[in-house]
């Protein structure tokens, strides 16, 4: 009997916690709505207030966080909130009206565009091919990379490395990075992965800790834990992606429901910041490639 009561109490506690959590969600939602329907903001753009919610791609996390911080510095009354749940979740949130902007690191699908989601490209990102630090190889050709990922080549010695099996690491189906990588190499759905991991961080950790591993991550995520490979003799860097010499790149998108011009004043101000000089400078700052180089140069001089 006592046990039953204890169980009941535990259930109550859980329930209260759950209600409390749901309550918090509502509190968050309130300022967002007041922001989106603030008519005063339309007339006086200097005194914008309210909040903007961005949901989406994990690859865009660093970029969006930096942008949000800098934007809030110059717009102190605006609260920019960002959640990183994946590109698909971001677009879903825009369609469902729960987010103002959906971050996507993959191009929108036709069915998504038909539903009214608009693809606003805000920057470009390179995809770095990385191996563990003990790997002696400096680079691969596109053909070799394709052979490795389709499973035709399974040992590093076949592409000029040491005699060690290749552990092919990739992302899960639906990932923006995987989508872009397979599309550019022309190996869509033909990849023979040994590991499919669900985040950039997991791929980094796996490649760093596994001798003979090869993986791909967003260029701005790659750090010293892994070694980046040159592709066809071109090493991955913002400059080489910008000039188009390095072929593995993809757009970063901030999707909206309807054109930017049809968004509320807050979201419009956000986009003019992101696509303007400072925003594009931020893109360069986090290792991305700006949408147009002219805007970036202006930003650099400011």
């Amino acid at each position, binding site marked *: 009997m006592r046990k039953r009561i204890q169980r009941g109490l535990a259930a109550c506690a859980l329930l209260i916690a759950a209600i409390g959590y749901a309550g918090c969600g509502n509190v968050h939602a309130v300022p967002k709505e007041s922001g989106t329907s603030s008519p005063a903001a339309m007339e006086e753009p200097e005194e914008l207030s309210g909040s903007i919610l961005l949901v989406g791609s*994990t690859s865009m996390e660093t970029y969006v966080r930096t942008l949000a911080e800098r934007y809030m510095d110059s717009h102190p009354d605006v609260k920019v909130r960002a959640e990183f749940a994946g*590109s698909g979740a971001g677009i879903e949130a825009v369609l469902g009206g729960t987010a103002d902007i959906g971050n996507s690191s993959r191009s929108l699908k036709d069915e998504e565009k038909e539903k009214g989601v608009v693809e606003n490209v805000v920057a470009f990102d390179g995809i770095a091919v990385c191996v563990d630090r003990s790997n002696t190889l400096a680079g691969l050709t596109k053909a070799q990379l394709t052979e490795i990922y389709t499973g035709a080549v399974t040992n590093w010695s076949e592409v000029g490395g040491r005699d060690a099996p290749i552990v092919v690491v990739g992302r899960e189906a*639906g990932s923006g990075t995987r989508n872009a990588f397979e599309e550019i190499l022309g190996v869509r759905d033909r990849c023979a992965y040994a590991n499919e991991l669900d985040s950039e961080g997991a791929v980094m950790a796996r490649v760093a800790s596994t001798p003979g591993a090869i993986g791909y991550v967003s260029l701005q995520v790659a750090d010293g834990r892994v070694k980046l490979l040159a592709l066809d003799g071109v090493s991955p860097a913002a400059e080489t992606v910008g000039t188009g010499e390095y072929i593995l790149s993809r757009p970063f998108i901030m999707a909206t429901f309807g054109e930017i011009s049809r968004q509320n004043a807050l979201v419009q101000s956000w986009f003019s910041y992101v696509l303007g000089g400072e925003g594009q400078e931020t893109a360069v700052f986090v290792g991305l490639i700006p949408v147009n180089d002219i805007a970036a140069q202006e930003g650099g001089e400011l």
Partner: protein
Amino acid sequence: MKTETKHPHSGSVMADRRKKNAAEGIAQTVFAACAFFVILAVVSITLYLLAKGVPALLQVGPGKILLGTVWKPTAAEPQYGIFHVILTSLAGTALAVLLGVPVGILTAAFLAEIADRRLAAVVKPAVELLAGIPSVLYGLLGLTLLNPLIYRLELTLFRDSPDHRFTGGANLLSAALVLAVMILPTVISVSETAIRSVPPGIRAASLALGGSRVQTVFRAVLPAAKSGIATAIVLGVGRAVGEAAAIALVAGGCVNPPFPFRSVRFLATAIVSEMGYAAGRHRQMLFTIGLVLFSLLMAVNAALTKIRKAGTGEHG
């Protein structure tokens, strides 16, 4: 008379009872409301899963999903076969139970029957601590410590088989090992309780008949505690089947038939790993996988209820 002078403000017996009744009533309402919310949660989750998962199941066809072996949700002609994923969940759980349960039961027997108090005072908190470690940490440790070890084993075992797809140590074996450790606390604490509740007479009888301590544990105490131990195993199975976070990091994540050195994907990780980016039918299909997982856990729970009923029947 005496009592009235001592408590001049306590009021009559009737008033007291009224107050008590009101308190009882309020308490009952609160309890009932809580119980109602719990039921509401269960029912709404079930309905939501059915509403989200069944359409895709019917549109693609249960046969193609449950028995299909190719999982290519984003291909031009998508295929949603989760046969290997289901098999992996079953095989991985079975392997984990096979590895973890003997260790768990023996630890429980040790704690309850053999260890002296000082030793038990060290082992028991350690077991409890094991239960408190977040599952992501198990995954992280598995990724950085266990996987490289297993990879070394894999390199030695498959040195001469050129067709083997090297997993870097992220495979079914690693996942099962991590799961085995994760189910230990559940198995140990539940079986320890079961062993402790065996009537002392059984032990005394065995010892009086000349049985050694170990004989007593294996021949008398453990058989007497079998329904409790079965509960422990089933609870362990439930924990293993539903685990996702740790496994996502150590199992490799590819959809393959479950062999020890193949990179595999479990039901729970299949949902977690692709939910972020999935859209349309692919997304619905993840809910269908959720439905399969849910049914599997329901079956585990049903087994548990059955064992518990059988257990109480024995004693009563």
